[in-house]
């Protein structure tokens, strides 16, 4: 869906975002800026052991402390919850097992934070210490004790095996087979805002929860379940998020704890996590070990690929089943891969749970794929850009795993970064120590399926047109800094021909706004935007009918622009927008419309095919230049060229900000960021603790580290997107890490097959090279995994229909939505 016939008065123009003034004056109200009268403060007592059974918990002394109003433990929270229906494995406070250092076991609600913190010290907990699972290979090997009593056996949370065509045959017939193992270290979102929640009863006695959440609708559902309350009696208001990046997408234990406390005490109860607690909340990038076996023809074109991934999931399910599938979903969307086998396995370990971070599950395997392509190009003496250009996935096609590629601007993206970076003159030609690397990527423009199965719209917008000419747009979408309020307002203003400032956005409030599933999977611009266009076009029709009658001109001749509604044949003949609303109101009563958006059904009918479908995919190409000191391994990135197929930039200022922000975050992951843990020898202690839960020691790039970035927007409007727009918030991050690795090889001739690519690793590879050993740092092997029976799905060009030939009959797509993996 896309609005046609619009003039582009708003769309495509560089504008101040609608919430720009609030942000620069300090008037944006984040969750921790709320302090209602009589607020009490909550602190959580967290487990000090990585894996243990709670033998005894004594809160009597804490309860007795002056100023303490309430102490809660796991006994107060019998109901499990979790973001995915298949992983309802969390309790707000641990009831039996603790699963990582930082798992909350008790909560104190007191008159102030100081008192609550003092009371935590008065709670006595006795643990029976259990085996610590620190690394995923131990979780594969050791089946008892189990961290959870569900999953795919032992400490395997999820194991999947899918094959699209006979890959063994393709590899056997290939001119060359490349077999590479890569590792992508875990890292975290590090939003500047620490998570905060304020819960209270409203004057009617119903629960109101203000929270820094990206997904108020899912939090609403989790609260109703965990607190056993009727959902209509819960109101979740998503405060503007001070950065999310996926880290505020799960319903969190602290949100449920303060909600229950507020109900019990009938007073506002607030919690704001410390920075250390934000690191423990995590839900960040999974560490992934991966193996790519790729067969190519003599020109380097891929004939078949076998990808295996092993994800270190941490202590809980979170989005992990989806993350697992995502490590193998999007390989086929960039390049034509005629035959493809994907096997993914997520295991539990005793660390903070991993989940969705910008790119959700796809950056890790994108890194491996793009570095392996660089190796293929090197071995076959083909330019890496040309190698990619000759096998780009065809537009308007189905991939081997039944993802529907629509428009694809990847070729144009590659051409642009090649031209602007001077790639042809630089690659392989710069002095030793300097190099350039190229990589590409694609990403979803919104997940094709919701988190929980339903056949309702993924986004909806309601418009209220006031006789003053003002318009209010209501939508459940959540502003996390990306500019979703601006997109909402811009789409409405463009269709109705008014100024964005005439439109007020009311968003992220489960009482006031129709459901939007949340700010994740790069879905908001496309889904909310299409819903907004539909609502605005319906409003335009209502107004046009009234104005046409009054002016006696055909409605289809009316133009909405410049806050006027006028006859295109005779532009002076018209009325103001406000008059048009008044005419419509006089004719038919108060003017309000709704619009909604539901993605098309997926072509994938096999189990697991629910992860990966999207209305359309964005594409990115990047060239990164590096300076590497061959003596020390010190690495500096002076320049990045990036081109992104965005379909259409609704507001180029915000689009550029998303791309540069993605480059920045990608460089952090490529060069320095790592969620690392410290462990003593097991005979001394079972301890397994976060190595540096602070912003000083968890290194992230500063203003001094950020290179020059040359950004190109490739704008070929996509018919699925609002005004042709695709996503821009996540895709541009993905090529950065492999492009850095490929540039390091171009600079000094060594391969660092893992991120982060630190000076120590580069130096180690340089030393290996000097000693005549393989000039490489990275993992050597992929462990044995007990894969489940492989589902065989014939690719579309081998007569397949999207179903697995060896899968028991499933309900049809009409009732399963194409088989959402997250339901399986």
């Amino acid at each position, binding site marked *: 869906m896309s609005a046609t016939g619009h003039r582009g008065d708003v769309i495509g123009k560089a504008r101040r975002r609608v919430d720009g003034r609030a942000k620069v004056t300090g008037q944006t109200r984040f969750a921790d800026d709320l302090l209602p009268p009589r607020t009490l403060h909550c602190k959580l007592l967290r487990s000090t052991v990585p894996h243990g059974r709670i033998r005894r918990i004594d809160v009597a002394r804490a309860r007795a402390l002056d100023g303490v109003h309430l102490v809660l433990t796991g006994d107060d929270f019998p109901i499990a919850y979790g973001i995915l229906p298949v992983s309802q494995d969390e309790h707000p406070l641990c009831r039996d097992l603790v699963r990582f250092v930082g798992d909350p076991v008790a909560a104190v609600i007191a008159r102030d934070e100081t008192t609550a913190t003092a009371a935590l010290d008065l709670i006595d907990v006795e643990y029976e210490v259990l085996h610590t699972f620190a690394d995923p290979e131990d979780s594969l090997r050791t089946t008892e004790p189990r961290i959870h009593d569900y999953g795919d056996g032992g400490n395997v949370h999820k194991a999947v095996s899918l094959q699209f065509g006979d890959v063994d045959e393709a590899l056997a017939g290939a001119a060359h087979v490349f077999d590479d193992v890569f590792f992508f270290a875990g890292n975290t979102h590090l939003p*500047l805002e620490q998570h905060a929640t304020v819960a209270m009863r409203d004057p009617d006695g119903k629960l109101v929860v203000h929270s820094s959440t990206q997904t108020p609708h899912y939090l609403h559902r989790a609260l109703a379940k965990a607190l056993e309350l009727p959902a209509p009696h819960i109101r979740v208001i998503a405060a503007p998020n*001070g950065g999310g990046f996926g880290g505020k997408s799960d319903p969190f234990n602290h949100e449920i704890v303060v909600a229950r406390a507020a109900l019990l005490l009938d007073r506002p109860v607030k919690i704001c996590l410390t*920075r250390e607690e934000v690191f423990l909340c995590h839900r960040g990038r999974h560490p992934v070990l991966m193996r790519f076996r790729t067969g190519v023809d003599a020109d380097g074109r891929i004939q078949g690929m076998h990808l295996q991934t092993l994800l270190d999931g941490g202590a809980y399910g979170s989005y992990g089943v989806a993350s697992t599938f995502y490590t193998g979903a999007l390989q086929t969307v960039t390049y034509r891969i005629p035959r493809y086998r994907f096997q993914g396995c997520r295991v539990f370990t005793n660390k903070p749970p991993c989940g969705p971070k910008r790119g959700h599950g796809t950056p890790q395997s994108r890194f491996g794929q793009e570095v392996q392509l660089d190796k293929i190009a090197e071995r076959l003496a083909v330019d890496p850009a040309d190698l990619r250009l000759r096998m780009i996935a065809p537009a308007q096609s189905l991939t081997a795993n039944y993802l529907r590629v629509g428009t694809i601007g990847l070729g144009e993206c590659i051409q642009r970064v090649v031209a602007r970076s001077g790639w042809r003159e630089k690659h392989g030609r710069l002095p030793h120590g300097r190099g350039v690397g190229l990589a590409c990527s694609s990403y979803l423009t919104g997940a094709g399926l919701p988190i929980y199965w339903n056949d309702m719209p993924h986004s909806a917008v309601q418009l209220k047109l006031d006789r003053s000419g003002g318009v209010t747009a209501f939508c459940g979408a959540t502003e996390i800094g990306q500019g979703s309020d601006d997109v909402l307002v811009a789409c409405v203003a463009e269709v109705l021909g008014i100024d964005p400032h005439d439109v007020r956005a009311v968003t992220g409030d489960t009482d006031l706004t129709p459901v939007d599933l949340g700010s994740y999977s790069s879905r908001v611009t496309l889904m909310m935007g299409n819903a907004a266009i539909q609502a605005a076009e319906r409003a335009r029709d209502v107004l046009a009918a009234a104005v046409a009658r009054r002016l006696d001109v055909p409605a289809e001749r009316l133009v909405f622009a410049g806050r006027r509604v006028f006859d295109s044949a005779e532009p002076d003949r018209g009325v103001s927008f406000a008059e048009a609303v008044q005419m419509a109101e006089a004719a038919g009563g108060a003017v309000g419309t709704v619009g909604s958006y539901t993605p098309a059904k997926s072509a994938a009918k096999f189990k697991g095919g629910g992860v990966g479908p999207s209305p359309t995919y964005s594409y990115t190409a990047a060239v990164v230049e590096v300076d590497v000191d061959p003596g020390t391994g010190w690495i500096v990135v002076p320049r990045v060229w990036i081109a992104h197929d965005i379909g259409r930039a609704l507001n180029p200022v915000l689009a550029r900000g998303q791309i540069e922000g993605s*480059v920045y975050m990608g460089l952090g992951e490529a060069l320095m960021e790592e969620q690392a843990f410290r462990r003593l020898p097991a005979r001394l202690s079972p301890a397994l603790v976060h190595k540096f839960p602070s912003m*000083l020691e968890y290194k992230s790039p500063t203003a001094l580290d950020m290179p020059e970035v040359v950004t190109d927007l490739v704008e070929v409007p996509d018919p699925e997107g609002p005004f042709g727009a695709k996503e821009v918030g996540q895709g541009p991050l993905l090529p950065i890490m492999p492009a850095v690795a490929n540039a390091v090889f171009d600079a000094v001739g060594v391969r660092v097959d893992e991120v982060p690519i630190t000076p120590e690793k580069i130096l180690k590879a340089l030393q290996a090279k000097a000693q005549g050993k393989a000039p490489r740092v990275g993992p050597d092997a992929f462990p044995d995994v007990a894969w489940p029976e492989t589902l065989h799905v014939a690719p579309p060009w081998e007569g397949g229909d999207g179903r697995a030939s060896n899968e028991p009959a499933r309900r049809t797509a009409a009732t399963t939505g194409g088989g959402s993996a997250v339901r399986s």
Partner: protein
Amino acid sequence: MPPPGPTRLHLALTVNGEPAEAAVDPAKTLLEVLREDLQLTGTKHGCELGECGACAVQLDGEPVLSCLVLAVECAGRNVLTVEGLARDGRLDPLQEAFADLGAAQCGYCTPGILVTARALLDREPQPTREQIREALAGNLCRCTGYLQILEAVEAAALARSK
């Protein structure tokens, strides 16, 4: 159990050009007093350990991290927060440029960066890009990649010079 008694100190200081007073817990930081006692929640916090720069304010014209300053140290002194940047009903050129040029995405680091940049421009009206990078090196931003922030400071410097 200590007997109830006065536990707070009287604090008088100037905030954004106006006299301000509060009875404060002497252990409180300037950040806490600004946000909790004076309801000036424009100043943010990201770590409360002096690591992120989100809580930057000006103290007698110098940028400081308000999470590392005890409020009682500020008696009689001048504090400037994001709420005090606009003058005579008009936004500071920095605020205009940040809003127009995409320098504020989520907006959480923005107040600290604005007051830090204002101190830079007051000291060095036409800074080089390197000087801007240096001045803002202690202010983390996770959204923008900094470039639109650097451009906005440059645009504001130009606007101030006109």
